[in-house]
């Protein structure tokens, strides 16, 4: 028996040695990268990150990957000096670095630092590491060493973005004396999330308030006031579409773009949550669809992810700046108070102030970035929400998708019209600014600016 074990061990060793002698280059495909992005999304859903925080978790890892690729590929320009505070990453010393591989490793390592459930990430990572070790240990080790050095560099930069400090800043104080001020909403009555997100260091925009939108209509419950008309419009639309029931296209649209990471459900003492991806994650999903459809190569794919995720991250900072400036009350609170105490919105009201609509701002920014990469008439079938039980929807362009995402919030009964219209504008202007201030591609033919 002992002899047997020994023999087996020896055989394993021999096999192993045999393999490692046959060194073929490691191939990292675009699908490998997509899978890793999906993996991070999956962990974020589990860990329950709010939409603004989720946008940060997409941006930094993609930038890490992009910076590595830009080191080697002359088509792409480093973001160092272009996004706030980022300095050049360390240069690659060794010659046998596989850049796509290093980019993917850096992506995973920076992501690991940002999510909570590290274990799921490391299990996923280690299975890939094993595979790469088996294929070409030397190349893998060199690439990994470099990738981790870059990840460290990015992490040090990331740590200066005020995220940690904002964790201990004051919570939003509810003041029910002020009828226009946001209040926690049913059913969970959660605290307002991320009231200090405007203190997070932006990537490209000058400051959180650079794209400060015009204020919402003055609060008034007078029936002829603009504000009240907006409120009534939300109620009327909701009554109309819920009467139409399952046939309603508007309800389908609302649900498709819900993108609420934590919808809490209460049945007596039983509580649970249905969790979905965030608005940012939905647009990251669209990046994947576009890359596949466009047959983008590895570099172009990382470029697309990076540009879009930066636009999304800055959009959240800009939007959240306004949300806690105007601190506007949600339709649900007012409708229950003044119009119909039993009314419930089609979508669950998310736990932060109303103005402007986060999904509108983000969709405006993301669609502008994507249009610049893939063109204005890029038709696609959006199957991002399939895993969450929602159907595929088809769009003629990113802009059309963004328009629909924005208006979906009114159908959902969680936003007034102004938050949607102005929000979309806010996002598009911000997106345009990002495009104009980021120079990522040398060959301008590669963009549709």
């Amino acid at each position, binding site marked *: 028996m002992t002899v047997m074990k020994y023999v087996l061990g020896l055989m394993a060793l021999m096999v192993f040695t045999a393999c490692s002698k046959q060194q073929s280059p490691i191939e990292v495909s675009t699908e490998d990268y997509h899978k890793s992005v999906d993996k991070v999304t999956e962990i974020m859903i589990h860990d329950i990150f709010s939409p603004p925080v989720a946008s940060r978790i997409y941006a930094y890892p993609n930038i890490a990957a992009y910076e590595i690729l830009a080191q080697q590929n002359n088509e792409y320009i480093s973001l160092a000096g272009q996004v706030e505070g980022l300095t050049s990453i360390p240069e690659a010393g060794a010659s046998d670095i596989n850049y796509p591989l290093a980019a993917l490793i850096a992506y995973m390592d920076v992501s690991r630092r940002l999510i909570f459930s590290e274990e799921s990430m490391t299990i996923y990572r280690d299975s890939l590491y094993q595979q790469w070790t088996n294929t070409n240990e030397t190349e893998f080790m060199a690439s990994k060493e470099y990738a981790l050095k870059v990840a460290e560099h990015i992490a040090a930069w990331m740590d200066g973005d005020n995220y940690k400090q904002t964790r*201990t800043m004051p919570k939003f104080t509810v003041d029910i004396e002020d009828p226009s001020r946001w209040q926690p909403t049913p059913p969970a009555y959660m605290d307002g999330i991320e009231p200090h997100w405007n203190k997070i260091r932006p990537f490209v925009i000058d400051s959180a308030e650079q794209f400060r939108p015009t204020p919402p209509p003055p609060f008034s419950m007078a029936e002829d006031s603009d504000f009240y008309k907006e409120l009534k419009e939300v109620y009327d639309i909701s009554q109309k579409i819920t009467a139409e029931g399952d046939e309603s296209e508007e309800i389908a649209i609302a649900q498709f773009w819900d993108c609420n990471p934590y919808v809490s459900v209460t049945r007596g003492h039983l*509580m649970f*949550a249905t969790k979905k991806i965030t608005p940012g994650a939905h647009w990251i999903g669209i990046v994947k669809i576009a890359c596949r459809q466009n047959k983008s190569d590895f570099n172009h794919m990382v470029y697309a992810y990076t540009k879009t995720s930066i636009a999304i991250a800055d959009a959240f900072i800009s939007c959240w700046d306004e949300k806690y400036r105007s601190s506007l009350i949600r339709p649900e609170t007012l409708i229950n108070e003044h119009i119909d105490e039993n009314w419930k919105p089609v979508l669950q009201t998310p736990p932060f102030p109303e103005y402007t609509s986060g999904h509108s701002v983000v969709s405006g920014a993301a669609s502008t970035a994507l249009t610049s990469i893939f063109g204005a008439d890029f038709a696609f079938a959006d199957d991002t929400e399939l895993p969450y039980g929602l159907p595929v929807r088809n769009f003629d362009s990113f802009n059309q998708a963004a328009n629909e995402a924005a208006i979906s919030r009114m159908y959902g009964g969680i936003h007034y019209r102004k938050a949607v219209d102005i929000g979309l504008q806010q996002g598009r202007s911000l997106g345009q600014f990002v495009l104009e201030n980021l120079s990522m591609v040398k060959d301008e033919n590669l963009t549709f600016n």
Partner: protein
Amino acid sequence: MNKYSIGLIAFVILIACDSSDGGLFKNPSPEDTGLEFVNSLNEKEDLNILDYLYFYNGGGVAIGDINGDELPDIYLSGNQVKNKLYLNKGNLQFEDITEKAGVAGNSTWNTGAVMGDVNGDGWLDIYVCAVVGINGFNGYNELFINNGDTTFSERSAEFGLDFDTYSSSAAFLDYDLDGDLDLYLLNHAVHTQESFGKADLRFKRNFQTGDKLLRNEGGSFKDVSEEAGIYGGVNGYGLGVAVSDFNQDGFPDLYIGNDFHEDDYYYLNNGDGTFKECLKEYFGHTTRFSMGNDVSDINHDGWPDIISLDMLPEDEKALKSSEGDDDIQTQKLRVDLFNYHYQFTRNMLYLNAGGRHFTETALQSGVAATDWSWSALFADYDQDGEQDIFVANGIPKRPNDLDYIKFISNEQIQKKINNTRLVDQQALDMMPSGAVNNYYFSGSPEGGFINNSGSYIKRDTLISGATAIGDLDNDGDLDMVTNNINSPVSLYINKTDDSANYLKLKFDYRLPNKIGVGTKVFSYHNGTLQYKELYTVRGFQASSQPMVHFGYGKVSKVDSLRIVWPDKTSQLLTDIQVNQTLTISPDQPQPFNYESIRSTGDRIFNKIEGALGIDFTHTEDNYIDFNRQKLIPYKISDRGPGTAVGDLNGDGKEDIYFGGSRSKPSQVYFQISNGFERRPVEEISADSIKEVVVAAIGDFDGNSENDLIVGIGGGDFFDGMNQQLNSYFLQKQGRFVQSNIPESFHNTAVIKPFDFDNDGDLDVFVGNQSISNDFGNVPTSFLMENRSGEFYVVDNNQLNKAGMVTDAVWEDFNRDGKPDLVVVGEWMAPKFFKNEKGKLKEVSLFDQELNGLWQSIEVFDIDNDGDKDFIVGNWGNNSKFTASEKQPLRMYYSDFDDNGSTETIVALARGKKYYPIEGLDGLAGQMVDLKKQFTQYKDFAGKSIEEIFDRKMLAKAKLWEVHELRSGYLINQNGYFEFKPFSNDLQLAPITDFLVFDFDSDGFDEVLAGGNYFGVKPYHGRFDSFAGALIKNKDDIVTGGELGLDFIQKSVRHLNIISMNGRPCLLVTFNNDKAQLYELTKHK
């Protein structure tokens, strides 16, 4: 000890528990007794906890003699199984006579089962509740009328009691005193719980969910809910009903326990066929998830007390992995916006304060946490003369498990629920079990309860619900039956036997209420009163054997029994031998005067309505400390207002200064001939941005005009903002001028002027309690020396670092003719500073560990021995904080997450380890990295503070400790001091101020104590129950509303005497409430 031996010991203990019975109760097996009823519950895809919120509430149980053989019989109802009636054959043998009796029932889902004589023929009938009209449940509430021959006839329709609603239980009471028994039907809501809705939903009646009062009209019942003022809304999750004459006026009242956010209802019977619901007036707070309840006089004062159950786990692991209390802002919304009352997730024990209000003492009494609890039954099970408590509890699945809510449920059930609205067994199995042992608490003469769960009763893993009491073996002591889910019913057979004495009383009252429901008994032995009322429906979905039972320990003779019949007549029995069953019938009863049991003590204080023109209401600003410093143990922002009494206009009359909270101007009331008048003092009110916590009036500049020093706190402004600075107003020729005073940016708590250097002017001690945004850091307290009206800080490092100071007193404690200073504060011991040649030096004058959360100190000779003692107000022991010399309360203070701002982590000792008070979400809200460290709640739950934070991190933190939470006094023993705590009734809440005065004009000073405090998170609740106390000496303390004080549900900040034309009045200032003025009725 290695793992193996631990395992072995656990194994041995398990075996030991399994094989033996409890010390007080044995549990004969179903095979031996024939009592084999099992409430088997089968979860199905379309019927489970998701479809029906009360899927796990269980069946009912009723005990009573249905055939007149003096042996109590047992009826059990089931949810998915047929009901059963067991005839007691004696010797604990039971025969299933369901078939013959015809009482199996025809409804799909039965709940409560109760016995009562509905048709008034002297035989016990059975009423079984049903849930009908949801989940395909059919049927109706069934009424089995006893034919007197062990058969029954279902006649609910005939009596108008065949309700097809969502019934939980029903209770018998003669609310209109017309001699027959009426019925209160308890229904439960099935509202989806998606939003609170407003409290006034209860005013709109709903047939299915609303409770009903049904008047017995002789042969049929009429729904009189509306006219009687009984709520019946869609919001009433009725799970508990108790009947008692709570205000001792002869008319039965009701306490209704409602689950979830709906308030409990406290109905006082107006005596004219109507009720007045007045919960908010009589109760400071209640259980949140109210389940079963029970009533009994537990403190021998002749007034019925109440326990209401909730679901707070005792076990750390269950506690920290279950959904906890509300966020403070959510609670505020629910109270301020939706108009619900304060509710907290734990059991509540309400002591009836002479019918004036209820004092809630569950934490102090040790009965607050019994996990998912259904039934509580008071009785003197061990017959020692004190009421004990049995709690039946458990839930097959804990649906409020945080991992389930946040992580597991999603992956498992989201799609299924969304698509089919069905949930499968596999998903349900993901919820952890809540099969917690039942609890047994022994009452003690001192008032507390001792948890004897593991010893008096067997430690079980049953899901027990409805429970009923009866003397099943007719041996005089009390046995119980619990209806269990998926296990045979448990018989608890009492083994007290003849080791302690008892009396069992049955009544032979008159038809149609032959068993005498509503009869009261006052029992006296050796000057001790025990009081009981006969109501059979008690606990949860159950009714107990109709009898009154008293335990007497070794006492062999009862001096007297005062029987008060439901018709308000009474008779007296004297010299009764114990250990017998008496059947008492009316025998020349005389009218009973209920006034005779009311307190006759004269009120020393009489509140002056209108307060002679003092119309000051302190309004606290909306600042919530926990929004900024999320982990601090209590607020620091709510210690105002400042109040000072003194002549401010030189007319020889005392005036009043009231400081405002942030941005609210201070107010000055000037005394005029017949009262007070508010007049503007522009210089003072202009200083309004600051939050005033304390104030002192005195002639500081020696110009014979009084000046004002104002101490500023509030916790809101920070980092050297000028709004934190104390203010100093000098009066010059009738005008106030703001003058310079040494800068102090810390939150001031006390300003004590005194001429400490004996140079003829007033010097001032300034005690500071905290540093805004940096709680846990030591603020700087200091002494200011007066030089011609200007103040200079006296250099004194010891005094500067005194601690988190809350109060101080100047007193020559070493009798050397020079004033010394005693300082108290939070997380510190009282500190004595001896005046040594004009320098205050700390001296050690006691050798106990006395760190407390001290709030107040005053000088008083409490033992009448001629030397001065100190009385000291502390936090009290009616809170979740626990502290002792050996196991102090701990608070770690450090910048744990290295982000430049500090945190505090409060930890409690449980067993040998310390656990943080906050759960994972609370801690991670401040230290987000913990979410990386603990990705599941169950990983965090049950972890001690050392297991959560690494040793180095804890070592670098400053450790604050509290050894003593009780208020008491430091008794002077030849210049050295020893701390003695007050009794429990002075430990109900923090005592925030003392006032020494001869209030009753008997020539001796007394001390008046005031308190209560609300600046804590819902985790702690509200300390609202302290009614004030007058301390005459250490053995003579009068508490509560007997004094005439109105302190309940109010937080006292200052007590002052103010002289009105030579007559002293008591001025009381509250935080966030209206100031009160009292006259002293005994003043000569």
